[in-house]
């Protein structure tokens, strides 16, 4: 912990700066002074629209990015440790595909999501889809002993969900397909102020659970049999890990769409920063880095000097992919998985 003090300080400062940047910077230019006035409650003279943007759009969006990024990152880490696979991530178990399928059913088969009710239905459908897949995976995990086989089953289930989505897409009208594609691009702005408490509390619950799993996660570094010999109950721990990641992925995907790369790349960033795969440090640093990277990506969705917004999933790989490539090319780092 002493050795890694600077890493924590750096990340916390970065988190604060990026959070502030998310509030100060957006598609609409608002002077910094007015933002401060709005935040300190002296916003009576400030443009009403600006006040609304800051309080009802930017703050919820920044909080969503913070928790969403942290949640995806830590679920990626848990899956990488569980499956002993550096390339495991939220999309790999089919859980996010389940969410996609749920949304696809609602958007492509029914009237779509024009209304508030439609929006809620989308979230519920994504949650339902993700949890159905999660339950299937957990049921298989009780039957299948090998984690590699379980991983393959997860990927297969993901393919099945993707096929169903393709069929739905093929038969849907153009505007519905467009709507679905837009959802699939990821977006931290879709959690409204009213939904924010539910979203945040769910994420925090999952994040706390991940912290509680630190001890068995470290034992898992040695493999399942060693872990079992160290007193870890493999079956229940595996279910806890799957439940924790499933919950986090389901919540984030339901509200923000399938966000790529953060879950896969951030655990590697955290290992690079720390130089260890000890979860005592890795879990908190992954949570912090995930929040930072998500806030950073969210800032970059607004093209500087314009009011053009780019889809989130167009930004995350630009930041995430070079890191994954670096990890693969740099031998010293890939050895974390030896």
């Amino acid at each position: 912990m002493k050795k890694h003090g600077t890493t924590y300080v750096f990340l916390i400062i970065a988190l604060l700066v990026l959070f502030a940047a998310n509030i100060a910077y957006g598609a609409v230019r608002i002077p910094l002074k007015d933002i401060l006035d709005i935040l300190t409650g002296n916003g009576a003279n400030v443009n009403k629209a600006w006040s609304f943007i800051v309080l009802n759009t930017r703050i919820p969006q920044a909080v969503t990015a913070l928790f969403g990024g942290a949640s995806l990152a830590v679920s990626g880490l848990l899956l990488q440790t569980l499956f002993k696979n550096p390339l495991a991530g939220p999309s790999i178990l089919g859980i996010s595909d389940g969410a996609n399928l749920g949304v696809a059913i609602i958007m492509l088969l029914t009237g779509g999501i024009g209304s508030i009710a439609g929006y809620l239905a989308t979230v519920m459908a994504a949650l339902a889809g993700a949890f159905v897949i999660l339950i299937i995976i957990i049921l298989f995990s009780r039957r299948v002993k090998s984690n590699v086989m379980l991983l393959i089953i997860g990927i297969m289930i993901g393919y099945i969900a993707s096929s169903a989505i393709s069929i739905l897409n093929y038969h849907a009208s153009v505007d519905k397909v467009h709507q679905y594609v837009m959802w699939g691009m990821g977006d931290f702005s879709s959690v409204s102020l009213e939904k924010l408490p539910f979203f945040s509390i769910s994420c925090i619950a999952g994040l706390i659970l991940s912290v509680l799993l630190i001890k068995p996660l470290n034992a898992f570094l040695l493999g399942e049999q060693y872990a079992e010999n160290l007193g870890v109950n493999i079956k229940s721990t595996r279910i806890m890990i799957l439940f924790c990641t499933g919950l986090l992925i389901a919540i984030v995907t339901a509200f923000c769409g399938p966000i790529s790369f953060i879950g896969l790349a951030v655990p590697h960033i955290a290992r690079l920063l720390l130089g260890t795969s000890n979860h005592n440090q890795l879990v908190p640093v992954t949570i912090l880095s995930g929040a930072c990277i998500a806030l950073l990506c969210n800032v970059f969705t607004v093209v500087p000097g314009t009011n053009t917004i780019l889809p989130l999933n167009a930004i995350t790989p630009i930041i995430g992919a070079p890191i994954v490539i670096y990890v693969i090319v740099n031998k010293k780092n890939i050895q974390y998985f030896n």
Partner: protein
Amino acid sequence: MELTINNLSIGYFTRGGKRKPVRENINLTLKSGEVACLLGLNGVGKSTLLRTICRFQKKLGGEILLDGKNIDDFTQNEYAMMIGVVLTDRTNAGGISVYELVSLGRQPHTGFFGHLSKNDHEKVVEAMEAVGILDKASRYVSELSDGERQKAMIAKTLAQECPVMILDEPTAFLDATSRIEAMILLRKLAKEQNKAILLSTHDLDNALKMADKLWLMGDNLDTVAGTPSELIENNIFAPYFEKRGIVFDKTTKSLKASNERIN
């Protein structure tokens, strides 16, 4: 501490719940201070036996006792403090330090968050000292040679403070020197720390020289135990390894191709 195996059947259960025995009627004992080498050709069930003793898989029948107590009656955490293992499994521990690896052995003794007390830290240092790897404490596990890695895993087991240590082919990937070094280390631990040590190996040469006891397993042969010399003198040893064209030479205590085949 005494490990007693009575009338044990090992093997697998098929999908329909049918027993598929690999070996039956096993009767063996292992005492504190002893190093026992489990020998036998590939596929005779050595790993199955070790896995069964470690409770990684269910036995088909019979009983395994630790000081008279059935091993099924221990909770998982209690058992984690009785038997420590070194396996051939690939690990993902390359990115932690040797110190952290050995610390994992303290897990059965630590609380919910795995926080290490002063006493735990002392045990970890003692364990590394006992296997002679203290100078590598801050190295990454991925930087270790195979021999050093095996020592680190043995230190992990020591930190676990188990009276019984079980090692599955601990010398398999080691060079000739490291193999002997590992065997000397295990003997030292058995004598000095009064551990009961059971290891499987294909290294007949070192097993015959250094084991207190051999456990022999073979197809269509009873599973037997004895000291190396009594097993060899009574011609019990040879049948477990001889095949057509391969004989055991009692004078050199090694396997060789029989003359008829060479000429």
